């Protein structure tokens, strides 16, 4: 496992979330250090997305979510968030530049984006292999392209914690490995903590430091190899994935992955 700085961390203690009378999360304990990429896997309805939305502050909860820097509790840090596959109107006349500017600047997009701002957006997008998308409408982007644009937005200005919800959905294998590579670079360069919710066990395992198997509460936790060989996982995902994840060389098993969404 990668050495992380341990000076700053996100601590979730005894978290309980109830929505409409149903307990979605119960007794969830998760610690994430900065510079660490943690993958959260689990069946549909396990509460993975709810966990991210709770960390974002969208959902009422019981328990404690604390953000610490050098041992002292800090206020809520900047959190970057890349949502699950967006469901918006594909004929929407919103360009990539419009979306980025409306997220990172107060300058009203409808009045027209000036050249300086456009250059700034272009330089931000270029870090995410997306500068050529600047003037495209968001409805014209492929799944992978949209994910990179959303990642660029989430990383501007640099957050302390990055939340990624199902980056694999609607993205082809090549696009996904480019996405994971970008996230890996970000973590190395900026020492941010990353929590990544995914179905893509095999694809993600070479990029995460730790995997958490979640089903209402934490069922198993540890390095990817250990969690992927956990028998509870078989019950969760069935034997087909079990075989994929036990390929001799785990890190090259991406080629055998399917899109599960």
């Amino acid at each position, binding site marked *: 496992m990668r050495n992380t700085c341990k000076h700053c961390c996100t601590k979730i203690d005894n978290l309980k979330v109830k929505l409409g009378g149903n307990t979605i999360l119960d007794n969830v304990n998760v610690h994430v250090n900065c510079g660490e990429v943690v993958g959260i896997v689990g069946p549909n309805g396990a509460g993975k997305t709810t966990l991210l939305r709770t960390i974002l502050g969208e959902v009422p909860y019981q328990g404690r979510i604390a953000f610490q820097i050098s041992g002292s509790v800090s206020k809520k840090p900047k959190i970057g968030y890349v949502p699950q596959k967006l469901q918006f109107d594909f004929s929407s006349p*919103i360009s990539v530049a419009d979306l980025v500017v409306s997220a990172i600047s107060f300058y009203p997009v409808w009045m027209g984006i000036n050249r300086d701002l456009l250059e700034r957006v272009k330089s931000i997008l270029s870090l995410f292999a997306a500068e050529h998308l600047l003037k495209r409408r968001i409805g014209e982007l492929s799944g992978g392209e949209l994910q990179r644009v959303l990642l660029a937005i989430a990383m501007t200005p640099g957050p302390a914690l990055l939340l990624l919800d199902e980056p694999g959905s609607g993205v082809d294998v090549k696009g996904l490995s480019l996405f994971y590579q970008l996230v890996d670079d970000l973590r190395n360069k900026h020492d941010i903590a990353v929590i990544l919710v995914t179905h893509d066990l095999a694809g993600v395992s070479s990029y995460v430091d730790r995997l958490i198997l979640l089903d209402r509460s934490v069922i198993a936790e540890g390095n990817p190899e250990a969690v992927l060989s956990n028998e509870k996982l078989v019950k969760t995902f069935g034997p087909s994935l079990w075989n994929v994840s036990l390929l001799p060389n785990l890190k090259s098993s991406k080629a055998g992955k399917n899109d599960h969404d």
Partner: protein
Amino acid sequence: MKNALLAVLLITPCFALLGTMVVNKRMAFFTDVLGHSAFTGIAIGVLLGIQDPTLPMIAVAVALAVAINLLKDTTRASVDTVLGVLFAFIVALGIVILSRQGGFAKYTSYLIGDILAVSPRQIACFLVIAIVVLVYWYAAGNAMILTSVNSSLARSRAVNVFLIETSFTILLALVVMISIRLAGILIINSLLVLPAAASRNFARNIHSYTQGAVIISVFSGVTGLIVSYYWGTASGATIVLFAAGCYGVSALLGRRLNR
């Protein structure tokens, strides 16, 4: 006629701006319900013995807008079902009250509107509302774009989604009710929807979308008003016909451009 032209020049850009977001957020049915709530507003005004029903109309529309906004997050029924139910209820309630002793004919002017009857006081009112819309759009435009794409994404960028959605619906209620005398209950909604829908057919970004909607809205407004004067027709409906014509042309041209 001069007053009517001033009124059109002030109010059509507001309708265009608001309309761009109504179409983006697929709220066309919502604004139609809002417009028709004028029936109940007028009825309540009559019951209370108020001469000018504008205030009760605004009160009913704002209350309805806020109620729908709250309901859509809490109910399991789909939004268009909720709107359909409210639409029927609010129109029926208004008509029942207004038609007591067969007096409904008095109110038919609200159905088709009358731009030529606009007073200088109303024009001052339009000027204020135009400034409010412009300031609101300047301050909240970006937040609305983010909200229309994804509310969680907007929240992660420190946007208060509830505040944005509620304030937007209240502003819509205000603008629609204040201008319902111009276009009439039956077609006020098309003034919101048509310019934006037409502009969308060829817009590549928010700037060109907004620009196109404002140009189409002002063009249809002025042309419709002048033509209705010579034809002796209802101005609101004539304006809507021109806006619909713009939509038709843009749909044909847009398809050719995108090919």
